[in-house]
């Protein structure tokens, strides 16, 4: 078989499906990543109501639960769960493909351009998945919360963060979020094909700015509770 015939046979054997292709799954990863970064940004902004006191935060929580006759929150949850599922699916299959693509490593590998954040995306992602499960059990269902009151989210927030171990895990998870976002926000523009030399610095700076803002404000919540600023 000639090289050209081998090529055509190889490509046809593999199929042309968008979701089967590596680049297609990268696009899924990036698009769901945009949804998730958007969510953490809005989540961070919403929790700013904790600085405005119990009634502001409880009213905000009530609004989330009652908007569009209580349908709104489920619509958001459906979108988020789908995005998380697709994101994890794309990450897992791509990671396995990537590991299979380099079965034998180098004895001496020098990293020149990659960052610690880019090399630890898999780990920060796994820690974030574990954190999200804990976070839902802690402040959404209250399963692992010491004194959960479904009618008073503000009290749950304050009492939850008064436990130093819980606050510590939140802070570590937020630092992982920072690593994940700093590489991910920039990386998703690349996967979605949004690159142009005129906007290269903007892409990097936007990733850094959004990461510092989201992670900085999120970390401030447990610290504010532990120091008694929010009580």
């Amino acid at each position: 078989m000639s090289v050209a015939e081998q090529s055509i046979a190889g490509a046809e054997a593999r199929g042309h499906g968008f979701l089967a292709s590596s680049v297609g799954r990268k696009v899924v990863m990036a698009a769901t990543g945009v949804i998730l970064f958007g969510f953490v940004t809005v989540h961070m902004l919403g929790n700013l109501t904790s600085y405005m006191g119990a009634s502001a935060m409880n009213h905000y929580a009530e609004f989330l639960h009652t908007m569009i006759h209580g349908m709104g929150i489920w619509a958001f949850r459906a979108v988020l769960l789908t995005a998380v599922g697709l994101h994890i699916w794309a990450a897992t299959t791509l990671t396995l493909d990537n590991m299979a693509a380099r079965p034998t490593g180098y004895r001496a590998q020098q990293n020149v351009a990659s960052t610690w954040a880019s090399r630890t995306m898999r780990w920060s992602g796994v820690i974030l998945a574990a954190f999200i499960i804990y976070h839902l059990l802690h402040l959404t269902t209250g399963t692992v919360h010491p004194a959960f009151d479904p009618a008073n989210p503000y009290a749950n927030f304050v009492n939850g963060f008064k436990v130093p171990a819980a606050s510590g895990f939140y802070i570590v998870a937020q630092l992982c979020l920072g690593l994940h976002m700093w590489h991910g926000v920039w990386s998703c523009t690349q996967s979605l094909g949004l690159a142009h030399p005129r906007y290269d610095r903007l892409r990097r700076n936007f990733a850094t700015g959004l990461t510092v803002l989201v992670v900085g404000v999120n970390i401030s919540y447990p610290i504010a509770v532990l120091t008694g600023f929010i009580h």
Partner: protein
Amino acid sequence: MSKDLNLTLHVWRQKNAKCDGKFVEYPAENISPDMSFLEMLDIVNEGLIRKGEEPITFDHDCREGICGTCSMVINGRPHGPRERTTTCQLHMRSFKDGDSVTIEPWRAEAFPVIKDLMVDRGALDRIIAAGGFISVPTGSPQDANALPIPKEKAELAMDAAACIGCGACVAACPNASAMLFLSAKVTHLGLLPQGQPERYTRVRDMVAQMDAEQFGTCTNHGECEAACPKGIKMENIARMNRDFIKASLTYRPAVVGGGAG
């Protein structure tokens, strides 16, 4: 004239694709700093041949940085420590007397080791054959100015066309991804009017072939761009992704039995 160097090499030796390989230590003595890295290996090989041992097999051809054949990872970097340099353009003055130098083949599932440092890069040829071409009527050449091409597009296409297919991007990528290579070909042809007829089938076919060859995928580390001896930019990968998305959205399956009229 600067002093000659004495180095210790740790070279990957592997008899063939089926055997396991291992690192073997060789001294490289009295090496002139003006030699190229390949000339240094030639000297070491002459010594091995004189001793009746099997010389180190490595790929090389033009020895002037154009053919992209001299594939080897030197101290963890494809083509060694200098930027925008192939192994043949790397001089021994980049090393210090007494240095220890680890030399490994390109590592990728898609690049099986043939022997020692020589790998089979046929996967890149098959990717090219899948879509890295344009269809033109043969015959006498067209007038050079018949197709208007903006200067900027011509320059960008030329920058991408500088890719020599050496595979350093694959070797440097922690995922052994060939996306910088593909993107250079997609950009080189896709920016020019001659490349338009196949523009969107090209990107889909080449990506399908890349996946079939078991290359990894891009996680945007940027190691490929740093390792590329020809300075191919990651911006090309974004352009390829853009074309791939558009191609996937607008793809029409082939009509069985041919079109009407």
